[in-house]
């Protein structure tokens, strides 16, 4: 480690960060013990809208929520009058690539050992844009140029010094995340060890899952006889979490036949899966609904740009909703801008989705796809105080996100000059690292050339 003069300073910063982390949420000299957001039009997602509502936040969580005439403001709470503005849960994006990520590389098509959270730059301006768009929780993933591109990470968009400040742990202290997989054309490459066809892709995946099952079984048997424990394989350890259902597979898939292949794989190997993108979802909506598999979808302004998306339509969300499928939306940032995430839901409504369903698809449904529905995705007592304040109808182009709060702390304030810069753009607003998207360079190289002249 290169230390010399820098290390002591770094240590102080680290200690300060830890200290800050410990006291976050607790009352300090400046911080009130609790806050009461009054006169809010509350869209709690679970439960009826409350036109003149009040929400009490204490210790980073929602203490109570109700109508102003029925819920008293505690004596120790600071009153925040929202003057009729919309108050709703922070948005949840089930599929994002912000932070200049670099996950699996070109070494092979299946890389469960790679953790995307080892690659994230928390100072990337994408994080500031995300909170400006009202996002509070993301699933950050590798690109889709592999059959299996590694472990994803669920993050809260808290103010951060390092990625560790963003992690979400479960009750066992496990760092929550999923596993990214893909089929269709993205992982198909003219390169040794990568599949050259859809059938080959499926065969490779099936053989790999069989190998993972065998590893899992050997590990299980070793509980009785330690000498039988196989050499530790960090990728296979993550696959055990997949097979145990703790780590959900997030599966990039566009075409209707590829979607069916995912359903077939998930059934054969009994893993929990969320379908991602699902451009042809309209074609197999009944099958998706019958399988009980949730879908995280993206609506793009026009079809095409890649062959698999040539039948993409805005009506997909509505058709799938009517079929009874569970739907969330995602930004796929940087494919679409996190600041415009509400737009995705509104386009869903334009395409026939219900308003209620569209708002759920930005919040609670995404939470469910990340096993976080007990903590986030709706405004209910006991849940994390992750919420946003809007100046109008969530589905209107003219509406702005005014504030974003995570665990009781305000992380975005549109009236703040710096935050405003990130919300609307301008000189100094962008300082992003280009993400690394392995393996479908025929598109990405053109894109990077177009945007940067190849200079990253």
């Amino acid at each position, binding site marked *: 480690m290169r230390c010399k003069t820098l290390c002591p300073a770094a240590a102080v910063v680290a200690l300060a960060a830890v200290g800050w982390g410990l006291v976050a949420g607790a009352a300090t000299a400046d911080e009130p013990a609790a806050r009461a957001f009054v006169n809010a039009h509350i869209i709690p997602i679970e439960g009826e809208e409350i036109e003149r509502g009040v929400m009490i936040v204490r210790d980073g969580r929602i203490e109570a929520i109700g109508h102003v005439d029925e819920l008293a403001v505690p004596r120790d709470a600071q009153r925040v009058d929202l003057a009729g503005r919309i108050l709703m849960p922070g948005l949840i994006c089930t599929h994002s690539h912000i932070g200049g990520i670099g996950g699996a590389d070109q070494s092979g098509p299946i890389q469960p050992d790679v953790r995307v959270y080892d690659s994230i730059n928390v100072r990337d301006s994408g994080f500031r844009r995300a909170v400006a768009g009202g996002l509070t929780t993301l699933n950050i993933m590798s690109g889709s140029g592999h059959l299996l591109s590694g472990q994803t990470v669920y993050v809260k968009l808290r103010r951060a010094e390092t990625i560790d400040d963003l992690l979400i742990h479960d009750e066992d202290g496990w760092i929550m995340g999923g596993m990214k997989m893909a089929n269709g054309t993205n992982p198909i490459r003219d390169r040794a060890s990568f599949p050259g066809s859809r059938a080959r892709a499926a065969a490779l995946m099936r053989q790999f899952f069989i190998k993972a099952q065998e590893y899992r079984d050997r590990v299980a048997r070793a509980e009785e006889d330690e000498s039988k424990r196989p050499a530790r394989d960090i990728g296979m350890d993550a696959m055990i979490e997949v097979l145990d259902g703790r780590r959900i597979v997030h599966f990039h898939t566009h075409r209707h036949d590829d979607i069916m292949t995912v359903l077939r794989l998930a059934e054969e190997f009994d893993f929990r899966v969320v379908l991602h993108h699902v451009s042809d979802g309209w074609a197999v909506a009944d099958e998706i609904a019958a399988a009980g598999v949730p879908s995280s979808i993206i609506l793009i*302004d026009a079809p*095409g740009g*890649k*062959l698999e998306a040539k039948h993409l339509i805005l009506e997909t969300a509505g058709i799938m909703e009517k079929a009874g499928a569970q739907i969330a939306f995602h930004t796929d940032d940087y494919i679409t801008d996190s600041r*415009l995430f509400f737009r995705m839901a509104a386009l869903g409504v334009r395409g026939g989705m219900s308003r209620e369903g569209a708002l759920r698809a930005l919040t609670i449904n995404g939470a469910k796809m990340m096993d976080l529905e007990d903590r986030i995705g709706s405004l209910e007592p006991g849940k994390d105080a992750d919420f946003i304040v809007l100046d109008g109808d969530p589905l209107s*182009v003219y509406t702005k996100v005014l504030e974003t709060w995570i665990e009781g702390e305000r992380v975005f304030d549109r009236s703040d000059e710096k935050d405003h810069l990130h919300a*609307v753009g*301008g000189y100094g607003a962008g300082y992003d690292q280009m993400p690394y998207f392995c393996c479908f360079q025929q598109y990405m190289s*053109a894109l990077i050339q177009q945007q940067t002249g190849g*200079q990253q």
Partner: protein
Amino acid sequence: MRRTRRSDEAKTRRSGSTGFFILILMLVAGLNVDDIQAQIAVRGEVIYTMAGDPIEDGVVVITDGRIAAVGPSDAVAIPDGHRVMEAAVITPGLIDARSTVGLTGIYNIPHDQDHIERSSPMQPELRAIDAYNVREKLVEYTRSYGITTVHTGHAPGELISGQTMVVKLRGNTVEEALLQEAAAIAATFGPGAHRSGSSPGTRGKTMAMIRQELIRAQEYQRGRAEADEDADAEEEGRAEDDAAIDEHGEDVDASPRSRGGRNLRMEALGRVLDGELPLLITAHRAQDIASALRLAREFDIRIWLDGAAEAYLLTEEIKAAQVPVLLHAPMVRAVGERQNLSFETAARLRDAGIPVAIQSGYEGYVPKVRIVLFEAAIAAAHGLGISGALETITIEAARILGIDDRVGSIEVGKDGDLALYSGDPFEYTTHCVGVIIDGEVVSDEPR
């Protein structure tokens, strides 16, 4: 072409010839039945004419493909035999100030991508009309949201990538679609033009190359003029030209007094030097915008700024140079040289008195085409408002492109191009419920 036909038609009407004669003339001119039947009246709760205040509870009458009347419904009679349509909001057919649709196709495979030619960094002779696919699915898709006129052509990505043109989103051939066969010559400054091989690798080299090329075009013009004078004085039938043209069409002998043959590349740049065509310069960083303005001064040429993500830093300079801006799509990805783009740029340029139109631009990936209606919506929500944002995709775009005698507003005598919406055109949940071009209903499925 259409212009010629139309003037024939108009003359015929003025001369009071019989309907039979008109019919024969139309058949001879190749007009289809829709043109003859293009009799439509549209009622709207609000009509944004873009020529004066919006009209509430109004009517637009289209006769023979052109706007015959517009006004409040109690003041405008609907003639017999006109199909009547209704919508909450009516606007002029929208104009996309800069696109590549029709040259770029939905599949994004080499077979349907004709927006850029990589064989040489400067190819101003490439015509958009030779690359436009009227049957491209994305043309129809674009149209279904109310866009009726598009300035399309060669994309950014080479120092001089080729020509652009203006088309209506209709017609069976590019000739039928054309409003302008050449609208501008597209150039790119900044890293977007930096490539390997013969392309420039730096900003300095970019400017050196384009300056030298324009100087060669000036010398070519002089050479041709002088040679023409010489030719007048000499006999016809001299020796064949000995112009040196390599396999890439480079290094043409354009020296003065050469008896070299016509050179399409030099001729195309000559149209810029003559002021006939503007140089459409894609430049995002402020330093590249400044270079564009400097080039325009040096050669006394017309330019349009294209993209211009950081234009808000140079509003005084752009205003002083009287250069219009075809602004990037507000939702284009804010990375690379566009990382400082702002949703508010359109409003800031408008407030500075700079002519500004919003474009859909070029996309290398998804979405393969942007919808300029959606893009202007972001500007509407960031300082422009409904009317201001509509201007950037109707009359202001038409003025910049020089087609405002035909399109861009709902006024008597202009082309019968309308877009019909179920509400505020910019709201995400509003539908486009009808699109009319030259009096022909080209789309009436809600979008």
